[in-house]
């Protein structure tokens, strides 16, 4: 499989292999560590698009899984049919889903602001149409494009899956920069906090909602694109992200970045431990129980906990 990632892509697994070798020699349990990294990356990437739309707009996008599927489909089709290099194809997957998200916001979600449960139901309906529509058009599965890079040297573990952890960190970092350091980010957050005042200050709030929704959708598409090489490409593939992403939103709370990062880290670790010991199902159950315990103790999720700690530190100073 040609990777198209260039020299850096060829080097990274080797570098990772060296680092892991060094860690192994001091007695760190490498396979477990890799599994954990994989789980954390999966959970953070699965949830990020959903949390942006929920955290910024208060809308639960139940077609989230289908947006992920769409990203994966665009990527896979670009590679298989048009022979576009994989990185470009991934970009196309993210962009295509973002455009689709913008259209959905303009035509559907916009009418349902303030009717939270209704927007859930409508996006659910959209998800059903997308899944089945994909099945009707493209059949029951697509030929997979294969995982680049092979295994991490010295281990039976896919190097590409390890890279996804770095991708997850990069995505979270980029989201942080966009929403805190750019003009758009400031305007978007102003819109969320106080739409009336934001409008009075000359912010085009309608545009902000559209762009925010598009970014959330685009990130879901990117997640699909990133997992396209290592997943089975079927119309229902979005569902395999659903449980993890919703549990993360519930656990993380409304803060997009902090919530996702914290919840992703904690849930990923828990999932890795329980999946390794008792299998996939118990892993999911563990996630669910963790979510219920977290909500029981922290009604605002981990975000609320972080805010409380920040306040306490502020008081002390």
């Amino acid at each position: 499989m040609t990777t198209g990632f260039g020299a850096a892509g060829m080097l990274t697994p080797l570098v990772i292999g060296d680092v892991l070798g060094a860690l192994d020699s001091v007695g760190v349990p490498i396979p477990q560590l890799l599994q954990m990294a994989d789980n954390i990356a999966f959970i953070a990437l699965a949830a990020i698009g959903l949390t942006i739309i929920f955290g910024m707009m208060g809308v639960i996008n139940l077609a989230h899984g289908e947006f992920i599927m769409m990203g994966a489909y665009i990527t896979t089709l670009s590679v298989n049919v048009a022979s576009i290099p994989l990185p470009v194809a991934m970009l196309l997957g993210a962009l295509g889903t973002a455009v689709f998200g913008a259209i959905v916001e303009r035509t559907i979600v916009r009418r349902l602001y303030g009717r939270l449960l209704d927007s859930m139901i409508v996006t659910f309906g959209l998800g059903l149409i997308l899944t089945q529509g994909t099945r009707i058009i493209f059949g029951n599965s697509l030929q997979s494009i294969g995982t680049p890079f092979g295994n991490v040297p010295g281990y039976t573990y896919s190097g590409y899956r390890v890279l996804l952890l770095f991708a997850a960190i990069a995505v979270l970092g980029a989201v942080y920069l966009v929403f805190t350091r750019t003009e758009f980010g400031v305007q978007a957050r102003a819109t969320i906090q106080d739409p009336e005042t934001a409008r009075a200050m000359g912010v085009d709030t309608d545009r902000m909602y559209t762009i925010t929704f598009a970014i959330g959708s685009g990130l879901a598409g990117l997640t699909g694109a990133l997992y396209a090489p290592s997943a089975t490409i079927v119309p229902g593939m979005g569902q395999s992200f659903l449980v993890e992403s919703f549990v993360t939103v519930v656990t993380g709370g409304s803060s997009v970045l902090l919530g996702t990062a914290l919840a992703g880290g904690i849930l990923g670790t828990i999932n890795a431990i329980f999946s390794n010991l008792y299998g996939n199902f118990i892993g999911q159950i563990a996630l669910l129980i963790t979510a219920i315990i977290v909500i029981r103790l922290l009604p605002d999720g981990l975000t609320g906990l972080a805010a409380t700690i920040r306040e306490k530190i502020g008081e002390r100073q």
Partner: protein
Amino acid sequence: MTDGRLPSRLDGIARKLNGPNTLGNSKAFWLAFAVGMVGMIAYPLVRGSYAAGQTSLFLVYGLLALSLSLIWGYTGILSFGQVAFFGIAGYTYAIVSLNLGGAFGQTVALPVAVGVATLAAFVLGYFMFYGGVKNVYVAILTLVVTLVLETFMAQTAGSEWAIGSVQLGGFNGIPGIRNFALGVEGASFSLSGSGFYWFVLTLLLVAYLGSRILVNSRFGYTLVAIREDAERTTMLGYNVKRVKLAVFTLSGALAGLSGVLYATWGNYMDPSVFTIVFATIPIVWVTLGGRESLLGGIVGTIIIERLRLWFSVNASEFAIVFVGVILMTTVLLVPRGILPGIRDGYVFFSEHGIRKGIERGRGTIQTRIQARLESVGVGGSETETPPSSEAVRE
């Protein structure tokens, strides 16, 4: 119905059935209802036992829709988990009835299965409502629980997954569940075809009338108060958590009853009842029919299931697309559902008379079109604002 000509006890029941929380309190409604019931009762005699057996599935689903109307339409708690209780009861019924065997086993299995589903709803409800889980989070958690159940049941294919003599069977599920029977060995009667139809119809009628009495009682007023403003209801001194738990448990029991009947209707039980598609279907029924109306869910069920049956025969791959389209268009165009829509139309025309009503209706449509055109001209929606995430949390 309260004109004093009825004997006083009947009068009392009639009074309890009617109230502001149900659509259709007029004599005209009850007359139409009675005519409809006669038609439903006569259906097997006209169409035969086989058709009645097929149609009884719609009535079984009607119970499931009723359970969702109570919890979602009246209390404002969107539960994707009704199918979970439905499935739990179906599986329990299969396991208990096949282990015990015979008519007696089936008679015992019914209350046991409904009891297990009720308990499951109680436990889940306790953790959610006493854990302070609200709004969308309830919807998400119930959905996640359902999906996790699917994962669990789908991996029970191995022979180690057996309860008593019954294999859980993974994806293939449990076959060989017998038609429902009541009684003990030697003195029992089995229900199939028309008999099963009438049995389910009776249960549905009792459940419907019982739910009417419930929502028009003080308890029902509390439910609606919680739907409209849970915090204010708490401030007025109601134990909102307990009421939510009670209605969630009750609707879990109703869904469980529906699940038992489903298992005996199809003679099998498999994990497809826990899938995301099946979890959506009750929401489609209730949305279409009108969630703030008990009859709406049942009517919506019959319409949708009739159409789904048509699709599964003629264009099976488009059935799910159709469900999605119905769901989206109903929420966007008729957000309250068709039954409340019909009621509004009826009230409108009976107040204004037909000719005046049409004129006024035309006027309203013109103003709406004008408003829409203006809003497009200005460049969008001034009043539509999403709530901040804090507001959503509350």
